[in-house]
């Protein structure tokens, strides 16, 4: 599904340049739930941003289902993100002026769907346990609830791939568990492909495969396959 070869990313130029990725090779299969881990500065977030079309590599190959992602125009990238991807960010990323229901509706309205958008958004919020909080604003709920609402928003357009950038970093243990169990449930029940960046060793038990990055490269010696329990 996702295929990356010899992927490089360099920030800046000349002597001040920082090489975040130094030739990453990676393949993520359909319906896989993988974790990208590594120490701070290892390049895991940079890799996730490139895979999620939020950033562009300096060099390399990157395809999704055989389609060259590096040849997409700005508008095509936006359309691809809207149609095919869902995102959960590290920090709370809901729009503060909208209710949870409205936040979840935004991606669908962006696709031009007006019809039963509200019903699907309400169902998704019900699924993530926020069925009683449809009319609440982000500031009125906890961080864990905000991340669950962000998951509902990410699922709104039935994405092919879900990207999560340290989704539990700002959460307490109980909220983290709820979020990760939601991912697992989603993965098991719908075969959702999920790529998640995490630095919490405990999170690894939820994924199919752990890919460790070290100094901008995949640490081949540390690829771990686990059975989600």
């Amino acid at each position, binding site marked *: 599904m996702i295929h990356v070869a010899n992927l490089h990313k360099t920030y800046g130029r000349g002597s001040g340049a920082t090489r975040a990725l130094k030739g990453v090779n990676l393949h993520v299969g359909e319906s896989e739930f993988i974790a990208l881990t590594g120490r701070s500065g290892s390049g895991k977030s940079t890799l996730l941003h490139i895979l999620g079309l939020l*950033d562009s590599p300096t060099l390399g190959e990157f395809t999704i289902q055989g389609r060259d992602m590096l040849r997409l125009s700005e508008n095509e990238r936006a359309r691809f*993100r809207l149609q095919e991807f869902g995102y959960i960010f590290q920090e709370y*990323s809901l729009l503060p002026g909208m209710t949870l229901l409205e936040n979840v509706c935004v991606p669908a309205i962006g696709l031009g769907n007006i019809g039963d958008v509200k019903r699907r958004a309400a169902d998704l919020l019900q699924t993530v346990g926020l069925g009683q909080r449809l009319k609440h604003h982000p500031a009125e709920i906890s961080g864990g609830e905000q991340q669950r609402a962000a998951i509902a928003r990410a699922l709104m357009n039935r994405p092919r791939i879900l990207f999560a950038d340290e989704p539990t970093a700002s959460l307490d243990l109980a909220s983290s568990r709820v979020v990760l169990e939601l991912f697992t449930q989603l993965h098991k029940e719908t075969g959702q492909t999920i790529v998640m960046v995490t630095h919490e060793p405990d999170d690894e038990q939820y994924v199919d495969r752990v890919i460790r990055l070290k100094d901008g490269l995949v640490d081949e010696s540390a690829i771990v396959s686990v059975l989600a329990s």
Partner: protein
Amino acid sequence: MGDIKLAIFLAYKSIFRGNLWTLFLVILVMALSFANLLLTPSIMLGVTDTINRQQVETLYGNIVLDPPMEQYYLTHADEIVQDIAHVPGVAGVAARLDNSALIEYQWVEKSEPSDRGKSGTWPVIGIDPAREAGVTTIQQHIIEGSYLDARDRDSILLGVEIAGGDEADAAEFQTLQGACVGDAVRLTYPNGVQREYTIKGIFRARESHADRTAFVTRGEMASVMGRAVYDDRASQIVVSICNPGTEAHLIDTIESLGFHGVVRSWSEHGEAAGGIVSSFEVVAGLIGGIGLAVAGIVMFIVIYINIIHSRRHIGILRAIGIKRSVIVGSYLTQALFYATTGIVLGGLAFGFGLQTYFLHHPLDLSIGRVSLGLQPATVQNAIIGLVAAAVLAGLVPVLHITRQGIIKAIWGD
């Protein structure tokens, strides 16, 4: 269509579900900027309107008939006055004989004839009192004594800035230092004729030229000039009209009567006075332009800061795949909303607040009572200027942010 709906939806949510206090302040700044934009040129226009009105009412009437270039006087003045008086649309006509004189007060107290004493040189105009009252308002501005009578020969009417005293604005040495009604003044005309007059009245028209003018009857002035022909001559004939704004049409009509003279509107006639007004209008234009720039910049800064503050949200919207054009449209809609609301509220505050107040409580300035004058072009320029500023303020930052990388927009690095 879906994109437009989403842009409006995002704008609506951002405006009304954001911080209402911020919304209130932004709109307040917009409204005050717009009201200020109207206020300055309105005051300037009010001042020029007052100056113009004073010139029409106290100096020239609406139309002035001057002698031809090569002559000092209009001949057959009474006949011309009669003919013009019959032109439809003419409210009043009066002939004048212009002169000037050295006016002395308490001259007997001077120790030497060459002492300046209480004296000065001012314009002296011979008028037909009744006809003059049909054109100018000098008669209505008598503050002491009374107006001239047609038969008066030894009486004079002085402007307050000639008489001096507490009512005058001019420095004491520039006046007769307190001449009063009933007092005698001595006039020495350029032709050497010297006459003594009793001050019959003192007027204050609040027009600097008029208030520095003395009036005697036209018969008296003709006798000063020494020849019988001056009885039927005039330095100028002034005309007031029923409907201001119809000067051009009436000038054509008066010209068609075939008089040997030059017919002009009051504004064309008074070159010096007109120059002051046009200079004032240039200053008003400059101040208005600066006001527009300042209001535009204020609006730009307020909207710019508002959008910069939303930078992370713009990044998130882009990250989840919302089109750049939708985001730009959303912030443009917000900017236009702020501008439109500010313009409407500022306009209402100006129209129903400031304008109404000034109508009932005009500024009491030395030139007269000044209320606000507002031209449609001023309002139109202000609206166009502020909307343009709002569009720029909405577009520039959001285009800048949406051209940044998404990661930079969200996390700022």
